[in-house]
């Protein structure tokens, strides 16, 4: 299937700073792709390159198979929703929505109908005659969304769409956006620095750092099989330990845990350094030693954080290493407090081997 947007080895520098460095990325039809990364990683620049608001130094950008690398923003069949929403302050909501359609030469009844449709899609018909200054944050976002959708773009580019909304509104808006996307059948590219937002919205996530795309994968795969230490650390909480491939075949020595673990994965030759990662919720915590067959270490609770649904414990081992453990709170669940001696255990398959 031909990608809606194909980014091919695109680079962009601002003076001495390389914002986007040799990025290759496809956006598939109807998918929601999240560009995730810390601020300054180049995700917004990449979005602006696709929209045509920045010119690429190198590489090509294809939209629907057509080379749009040097096309002006107004000639590209994609639309962008800005972080600030960028509504035209001197126009009513309806005029804001009509603006883009007028540029395409839509007139008269057809114009009215399409403005009406777009406003209906975001449930803003009642506020059509309001000025942007009279709208709340959530209403502004919907107006901006309607303005983009009215153009029926091939792909919608969203720059931090939830940044200006409060937490309560954010979750609801995420679901609404996704429902809208499925109904309209257009591709979304969402820029975000919030990994839970990326997981909630995206079909695939591209993790970016320092201008590079580190990994592109479905959220579940990204979470369970991160390609590198940086991805693992950026995408959710994780324990990462340095390790060395052991002399016995199939084993890894983890000095921090004072543990040699048999790992069911292809390993490099003995003595090679690597990293081993373990998600905090895959670790069982108990007062008694774990059953045979599991990996097990013991330690002392350094800190306990109650988070409602879960508790997070920081457990100090005899080596001095601190392990992060997340335990479900539920009926009959054991709770621990600072200073308790505990045993941690997990199945060897829960360990992820990463490059050093």
């Amino acid at each position, binding site marked *: 299937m031909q990608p809606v947007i194909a980014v091919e080895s695109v680079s962009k520098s601002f003076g001495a700073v390389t914002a986007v460095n040799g990025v290759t990325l496809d956006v598939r039809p109807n998918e929601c792709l999240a560009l995730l990364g810390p601020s300054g990683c180049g995700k917004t620049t990449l979005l602006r390159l696709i*929209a*045509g*608001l920045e010119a690429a130094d190198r590489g090509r950008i294809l939209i629907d198979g057509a080379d749009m690398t040097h096309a*002006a*923003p*107004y000639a*590209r069949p994609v*639309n*962008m929703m*800005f*972080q*600030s929403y*960028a*509504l*035209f*302050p*001197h126009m009513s909501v309806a005029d804001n929505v009509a*603006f*883009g359609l007028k*540029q*395409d030469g839509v007139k008269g009844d057809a114009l009215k109908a399409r403005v009406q449709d777009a406003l209906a899609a975001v449930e803003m018909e009642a506020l059509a005659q309001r*000025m*942007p*200054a*009279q709208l709340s944050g959530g209403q502004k976002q919907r107006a901006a969304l309607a*303005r*983009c959708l009215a*153009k029926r773009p091939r792909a919608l580019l969203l720059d931090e769409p939830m940044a200006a909304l409060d937490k309560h509104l954010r979750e609801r808006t995420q679901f609404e956006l996704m429902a809208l996307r499925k109904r309209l059948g257009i591709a979304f590219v969402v820029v975000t620095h919030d990994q839970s937002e990326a997981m909630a919205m995206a079909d695939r996530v591209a993790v970016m750092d320092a201008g590079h795309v580190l990994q592109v994968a479905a959220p579940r795969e990204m979470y369970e099989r991160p390609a590198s230490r940086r991805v693992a650390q950026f995408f959710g909480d994780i324990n990462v330990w340095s390790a060395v491939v052991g002399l016995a075949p199939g084993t890894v020595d983890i000095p921090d845990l004072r543990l040699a673990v048999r790992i069911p994965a292809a390993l490099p030759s003995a003595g090679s350094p690597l990293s081993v990662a373990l998600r905090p919720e895959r670790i069982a915590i108990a007062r008694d030693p774990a059953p045979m067959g599991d990996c097990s270490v013991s330690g002392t609770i350094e800190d306990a954080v109650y988070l409602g649904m879960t508790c997070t414990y920081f457990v100090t081992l005899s080596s001095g290493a601190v392990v992060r453990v997340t335990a479900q709170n539920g009926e009959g669940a054991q709770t621990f407090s600072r200073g308790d001696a505990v045993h941690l255990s997990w199945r060897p398959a829960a360990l992820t081997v990463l490059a050093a």
Partner: protein
Amino acid sequence: MRRPSGTTIALIAGLAFLYVPLAVVIGYSFNASKLVTVWTGFSFTWYGALLADEQILNAARNSLIVAFTSATLAAVLGTMAGYAFARFGRFRGRNLLAGSIAAPLVMPDVMTGLSLLLLFVALEQTFAWLPGRGLITIIIAHAGFAMAYVTVIVRARLIGMERDIEEAAADLGAKPMTVFFGITLPMIRPAVMAGWLLSFVLSLDDLVIASFVSGPQSTTLPMVVFSSIRLGVSPKINALAAILIIVTLVLLALAAWMSRGALRMRPAK
């Protein structure tokens, strides 16, 4: 009764400092006496005399033509220059342009007037252009220095304005001209209008530069006022001043009203 606070007194003193002279002029414009500073009774005599004075009416017409045309020219040129400074980044010749636009702000009017006069004389001798000088030369001179003020105001407004609104317009399919006239210009309209009004007032007020570059048939109001007070202040001048003050107040009120509308359109926060 509450004792007025220090701030109130300071405010009244400040307003008095600014407006008492104007009030005096307006008051004496209704004086029946031929002597400017001796009050004898209320009268519209001098307004009648003013309207009968062919020379003053002609100068007033000239001044309004010059002020209106030069302010409009300055608003157009200043907006273009301000846009270039705020939006075009570092283009070739930027510093030269910035310097030449700022020059009238810091140069003494006498120097500006003299250099323009020399230029116009040279143009007349070489190309026979603008023979004898007249309103057109004053308009050119005024537009030239007033545009500096418009540039500064428009540039400041554009720099304070997020670019993403213009980018959004481009993203929605608007070509650069549509973006400018449909989005940028409406948003900076208060700044352009303020610049136009300032240019208008500056032109109406200018004596020095106009004296240098005017021709024999193109006397402006300040020139008439200045030359007539050398022969002694006529109460007619009081009446003229009163009219000018009223016109200026009306213009200022208009500007305030327009920028209030503009403020309401700005996004909240």
